[in-house]
């Protein structure tokens, strides 16, 4: 019949194993807050949002402060440079998940002007030289698509750039 999908069937010791696949597509609403964040990335600007009550600048921004539960409205542009708080170098490949080939690194970066860390990829780097506390800078995607990878990765700031 038309609607049958052929999946793998394995027989082992008289018992069957059926392959199955779930391919339900999803479209998630970013909402006003994340949309603004992504619109900022299009202009190579990183926006956070400040909770005046807790005096915390959240990057990425969120609509509600999880600490005091107030609605947040105070937008703040933060630096595209920051400090590496922790990182890991990944040595396995998971092609459907990873946008980079192993070895590559994830890090949590606290941008200048932000009070929370942003989890992201670390690229354009000598991975052996990654250290907590080192300075990183955002690398923006050339053609923004309105998602998290509009920041392609964070790369180490070379001393020469500091002048």
């Amino acid at each position, binding site marked *: 019949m038309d*609607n*049958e*999908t052929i999946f793998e069937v394995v027989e082992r010791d008289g018992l069957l194993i*059926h392959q*199955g696949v*779930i391919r*339900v*597509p*999803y*479209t*998630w*609403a*970013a*909402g*006003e*807050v*994340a949309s603004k964040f992504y619109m900022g990335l299009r202009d190579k600007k990183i926006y956070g949002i400040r909770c005046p009550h807790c005096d915390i600048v959240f990057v990425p921004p*969120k*609509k*509600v402060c*999880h*600490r005091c*539960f107030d609605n947040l409205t105070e937008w703040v542009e933060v630096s595209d440079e920051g400090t590496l708080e922790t990182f890991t170098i990944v040595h396995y490949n998971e092609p459907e998940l990873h946008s980079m080939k192993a070895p590559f690194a994830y890090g949590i970066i606290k941008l200048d002007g932000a009070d929370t860390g942003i989890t992201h990829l670390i690229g354009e780097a000598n991975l052996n030289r990654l250290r907590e506390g080192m300075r990183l800078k955002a690398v923006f995607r050339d053609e923004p698509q309105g998602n998290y990878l509009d920041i392609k990765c964070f790369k180490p700031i070379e001393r020469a750039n500091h002048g």
Partner: protein
Amino acid sequence: MARRTAIVGVGQTYHTSKRKDVNGQELINEAVKRALEDANLTLKDIDAIIIGNMDHFEAINYVDCWSVDGSGAFMKPIMKVTTGGSTGGTLGACAYYHVASGFFDVVMAIGWEKNSESDTQAAISTCADPILERDFFGGAIGPNAAEYAMYMKEYGATQEDAARVAVRDHNNALNNPYAHLRKFITVEDVMNSPMLCWPIKLLDSCPRSDGACAVIYASEDRAPKITPKPAWVHATAVSHDYVYFGDFDWEAMPTLEATATRVYKRAGITNPLKEIDVMELYLPFSTCGVIWMEHMWVCSRGESPSLIRRGVFDMKGELPVNPSGGVLSTNPIGATALIRIGEAALQVMGKAGDRQVSNVKTAMATAFGSCYWFEATILRATKP
């Protein structure tokens, strides 16, 4: 033994087909904030939170953990319960047991769904057994249609009887600012709407919505201090019995009968038609609003159509059903059954606005799992 428990606050979003302006956490937050406001509480007053939805509609694993920014569960206890369409009933029961057990004093249950984020039928069809039933499960409409076809044949009911249920629920929704579909319809409109699966037509069936609902439960000590007229939980009950869709006995509706029997017994109800003042029922199709009244022992077999024709279940009738507009007008699936409980509570608390039924002392809410998991709650204005 059991601590007495009451509902003290209800909040919900303005339900609609698609909320593009908020993500899931932000949608949840709207309902949570309204519930807190309704109870005049702050987040600090909430001791524990329970959340539920159906995972495959939004593809978020560990929703309880993800929800924190919206639910307010930061450094609080939160857990997730889920049973499909009946999730809202499961949430209400879970909140009740959180309080009744003595572990927590003030507890919030949150149900939510953003059905717009996936193809609802694709996601729901993954509930069928992947090896034997998934490919053949086009939804619950077929068996419900067959059920009503058999019922019409046996008891002389008509398609118009079901249409009257649809008209009642849809038109009640005009009084509910939170309802998703708010449009005046007639029996003729229902009869002329596209046939989905004979004899069920488009206006006989429920929509899919984006929405959230939060309901706050409190202990006997706390409830009267929070609100002068809490809605006391007198009983909750659940019954279900299937593993495969093919297992269910559509004619006898054993799980609905068992649930109703159990919840009436626990609440000391012997004549639901006389003793219950308002019902908020999870009716996915208008046909269910005909047949299921009988399985809930509201009337005897075959008697429901005449009661519907007499207007017994209308707003001004003896036992108003779905003053809110019910599931036929609003259906964010993981929230749907919790909305039933919340609406029943508002009726008892006298806070239902334009949809208020006068002088409600006893209200009943039900939940229906996507295939025959029924839950029920009885709320009263007086303590158990």
